[in-house]
């Protein structure tokens, strides 16, 4: 689900922990002691502990009740990396929430001050390209005495796009027949700086002229000689590899390399053709196409 989730009696589960069970054994032991010695004060202590055990259920409930959880954004990752999902937690009441544990694969813990919000990034490891869905997010707390654990499993619609794992092999960009005659030249020309132009969204961050930005002169992109001349086609049919995944992996590698170098490239998969371009947006479109192929 995408909507914010408020924790209430329908969502919070409470069960005793191991320690809670041991506490119950302690109470039983005290009752036995009281019984054997017919000692009313030991009875009273046992009853007090039993009442505390009982009252703690309410406090456990209170440790989670009222919290509002909302799913945040998630970033695309390459297969094998952990996908991060942001979860926003809002504590709208006047009480501090101690030691909340929020878990997807690994538990994160946090303490929320009264009337405060926090954002936690939870990671889930990915293996295959495509849409990665994370399962249930569980928020739990053992506050105050550790005898009970209150928890709420929430099935957020957590999805992250997973790109293919880039091939470790560094192969030269493929020779493409459609490229212009000056292709050898263009490879060199990619490094030739010839001027600055105003930054446009989609320009590679690597080409931003940070020094000028730091001086407060505005955001500029460096222009390289090769930018307009070199043209490469990254084609599924020309990609080396024994199977689809290997080919996609190699294509992924080229897309990243080309993106890094700022070389414009065309991209073609069966059923998809993207004309030569460069910049982050183009890279992303190519990677998305690879992920979802």
């Amino acid at each position, binding site marked *: 689900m995408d909507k914010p989730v408020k924790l209430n009696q329908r969502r919070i589960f409470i069960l005793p922990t191991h320690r809670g069970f041991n506490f119950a054994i302690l109470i039983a032991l005290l009752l036995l002691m009281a019984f054997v010695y017919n000692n*009313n004060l030991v009875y009273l202590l046992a009853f007090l502990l039993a009442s505390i055990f009982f009252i703690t259920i309410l406090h456990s409930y209170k440790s989670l009740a009222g919290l509002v959880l909302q799913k945040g954004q998630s970033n695309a990752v390459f297969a094998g990396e952990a996908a991060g999902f942001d979860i926003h937690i809002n504590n709208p009441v006047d009480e501090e929430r101690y*030691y909340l544990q929020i878990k997807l694969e690994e538990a994160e813990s946090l303490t929320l001050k009264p009337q405060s919000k926090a954002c936690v990034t939870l990671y889930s490891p990915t293996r295959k390209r495509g849409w990665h869905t994370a399962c249930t997010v569980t928020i739990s707390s053992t506050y105050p005495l550790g005898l009970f654990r209150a928890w709420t499993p929430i099935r957020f619609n957590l999805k992250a796009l997973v790109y293919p794992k880039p091939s470790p092999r560094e192969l030269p960009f493929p020779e493409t027949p459609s490229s212009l005659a000056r292709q050898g030249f263009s490879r060199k020309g990619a490094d030739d700086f010839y001027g600055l132009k105003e930054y446009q969204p989609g320009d590679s961050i690597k080409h931003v002229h940070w020094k000028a930005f730091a001086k407060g002169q505005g955001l500029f992109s460096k222009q390289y000689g090769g930018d307009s001349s070199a043209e490469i086609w990254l084609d599924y049919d020309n990609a080396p590899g024994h199977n689809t995944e290997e080919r996609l992996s190699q294509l992924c590698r080229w897309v990243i390399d080309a993106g890094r170098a700022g070389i414009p490239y065309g991209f073609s998969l069966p059923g998809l053709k993207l004309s030569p371009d460069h910049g982050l947006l183009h890279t992303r479109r190519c990677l998305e196409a690879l992920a979802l192929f």
Partner: protein
Amino acid sequence: MNIAQNKNILIFLLSSIGLIALPHITHIPIAVFAFFYLLLSWRFIGIWKPNWLPDKLTIFFLTVCGLALLYSQYQGILGRDAGTRLFITALALKLLEIKSERDLYLITYLAFIVAASQFLYEQSLLMAAYILIVCCVLLATLVCINSKKPQTGAALKTASLIIVQALPVAAVIFVLFPRVEAPKWMLFNEHHQAKMGLSDSMEPGSISNLGMLGELVFRVKFTGALPPPEQRYWRGPVLSRTDGKRWTQVQDMRFGLLLDNPVIKGPAYQYTLLMEPQDKNWVFALDMPAEFSLSLSRNANYQLITSENPDKRAEYKITSYPNYNTGYITRTEFKDTTQLPGEPSVKIKQLVKRLQGFDRTPEHFINRLLNHFRIENFHYTLTPPLMEENPIDTFLFETRYGFCSHYAAAFVYLMRVAHIPARVVTGYQGGELNKAGNFLEVRQADAHAWAEVWIENKGWVRFDPTASVAPERIEQAINIEELVSGGLISYASTSAAAQKAFNLLKQARQLWSNVDYNWQRWVINYDNKNQSGFLSSLGITDTIAMVYWMVGIIGLITALLSWLLLHQEQKNTSPVLRAYNRFCKKLVKHGLSRGKGEGVKDFAERVKIKLPEQAENIDQITALFIKLHYGKNATRNDLKQFDKLVARFKVYIRVKVC
């Protein structure tokens, strides 16, 4: 960071454990106690010097030491004393091995058991309060562990809140939880320290200093009128046999059971006796106990014996008749009560002759003898000289200083010389009236000995020779307090303030005593008999009804608590917004309401036009609100000031007079 290594939590836990074990100093051997505190201090030092903590081998060695110590102190595993020592030693050893959160929990649970074992020794209200406080600290340790934040103040607050919420539930369970007596085989035979008090023999000459013990023996609550002080004789063992020095009970009392019941007449006193734990199964009743609880029986000497374990507090309902006639005397009884160890000395015979013991009626002789004690130079003292040889002769003719036992022994002896059946009765005399609770408190210091003489047609009649020597001993029972304060009063009598302070002190003491009495009666002594009595008065008669009531009341309390907890959730706006809403409300009364989506600043401008004389205040409030609500670096002081400004804000509207 590992929470088990957290300094603050460790300090907190170790201090509470030090407090838990502290009252055990009076019941466990000093070696075990020292062992415990040695390890505790070692662990304390270990907080700052973790390298000094023992390694596995040392802990093993220490465990062996601890076990050896336990073995040397007590050959056994079961039982109260052994159990307590075992748990204390285990707790001490576990302290040295704190590695994870689990260990902290185990230690806390062990500490709860040690705290409970405290109640097996002492059950006073003060002890209960002390243990409650320490338990609160222990719970706070758990709160600290679970909040991962060693904020001791906040943790203590949470722990006490939980305890306060749990107490009513605990009280309900306490009242309604069915009490079942443990079967006899489960009761351990405990060898208690000898309690001071009455013994089954008396040897006046060998005691030169009777300790004045303030320890409570029993309390009596009368349903009707209280008997006058001169009738407050609480009957204990009757001593008939003597060897001249020592007075003992007649062992064989089987024939006594065949005796007829004494003839009783006149007014009766109904009372409830609350006995403190005793060594012996004697129950001290007023003469003559006629109706009593089923667990009691009356022996041939008209003394009440209980069949219950005297080790526990017990309550008995008794009715006594001060006017009675025991009738005839049996042959064995006559033999026993006229028995003399040997031929009396010439001096004694002369004395009896002089007092006309041989030729006149017993009553006449008794009167002459009591008069003799009164007019001759006899003195009452609690520190008499020792009388090793012929104590009765020495007392009657030489020292003439003694306390009740001396007088009773001499009196009985002289009676027997005159061939009159007589015996010594021991027990308690008097008792202090607690005005706050209207009950009598009888303490060890009230222990007394008097005489009984068998008179034709009257049966056994009580005579108290001590009364002729020190009537104030009987009429107004001397007790510790008055003896101690006697000196105080004599020199402080000039100062009225001191007297007043003393009276206040006495009142406070009596009030406390009353609280204690009710604590003993309703909490400590709340057994299955009391419970069924109390519950049936409420209309709860069987166990199933008890369970229903328990579940019902606890459900009610839970509902109330949950409502309280959920209610807090409702007011989920920030204090800043709440204050601002208060400000807006003040304006609404005068027709200025903030529109939906209207900016705070716009609203302020609009209000200022209407209320130009308040412009400055409105600006201040608005600016602070913006800072607090939207800004990042607002301080607590800002909030305080904001609250203050809103509270002070008042709308004055000039009444336009046309």
